[in-house]
């Protein structure tokens, strides 16, 4: 289970490369957050579940149609899902760079 967790988050780690596509994405995080399996997402987008794996690893660059399909599915703008630069972790984006002590006060 633990290795799978690491694997799912691989593409949002700024230290990692963006994969063959040259794009970073948050598909794995969004999917995990909403409790959607790859198969369910694949069925909704009418693609093979393997393609979702390729997208998550950044090994496949989606067409505009598929990117907008993902955007509609997650209810987020495309730029919240794909980026040419590494994403900041969501927690950092929401709470900024504040330390634990700041939150406590």
């Amino acid at each position, binding site marked *: *289970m633990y290795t*799978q967790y690491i*694997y799912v988050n691989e593409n949002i780690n700024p230290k990692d490369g963006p994969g063959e596509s040259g794009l970073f994405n948050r598909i794995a995080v969004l999917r995990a957050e909403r409790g959607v399996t*790859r198969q369910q997402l694949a069925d909704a987008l009418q*693609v093979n579940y*393997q*393609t979702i*794996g390729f997208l998550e690893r950044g090994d*496949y660059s989606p067409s505009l149609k598929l990117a907008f399909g993902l955007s509609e599915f997650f209810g987020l703008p495309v730029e919240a899902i794909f980026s040419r630069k590494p994403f900041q972790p969501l927690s950092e984006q929401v709470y900024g760079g504040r330390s634990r002590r700041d939150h406590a006060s």
Partner: protein
Amino acid sequence: MRAELMLMGRRWDMAPQTHRRTLVVLIYAALALAMTGLWLVDRWRVTGVYMIFATILINRTLLGGYNFGGLIKPFSGKAPNRGVDPPPFLVLGLRLYRPEPEENAYRNDERESQQRDHAHYNAYQGLTLGLVLVWLLADWQANAPKLLGWLPGGPAVYLYGLTLAVVVVSQTLPQAILLWTEPDMEEPDLVEMGMAGLS
């Protein structure tokens, strides 16, 4: 691409890349053996056409790409016409994989279509070389027969053999490239487990 091969009533796991590569090597070894064997029988005079039949059978049962069976979905991305149902021998005798007539089982998504086109491009590069050899042999046979005079049995039989080999390879190479290059396929069950671990 399908992750398992249904043959002789058994499911063969083809998700690991090594399994698919082994299959490709075995298929081409068998084809090479058949070519050599048929050359020994009658230098392909009558038996050459059997190579075409063998290729069609291999595509229908193992490789796919053109019809209902095999690992690769039809390149056309469409379900085969049910009007041309396979002979009962193929379905009952070999107990092949034969999905229901719904488009999803046959449709290639955009990544698969891209892979398909890339495989055809790569196959085209190799086949061009084969066609150049066919042309060269035909040219020498027609215009400079002395150059090929040393070949036992005459150049015509080699020209026929080379042409036959190019036809066989042209019908199987794109599928073989796809099977060879696709990385290990993830099992849907493992994906579900991963999700369970996250929630």
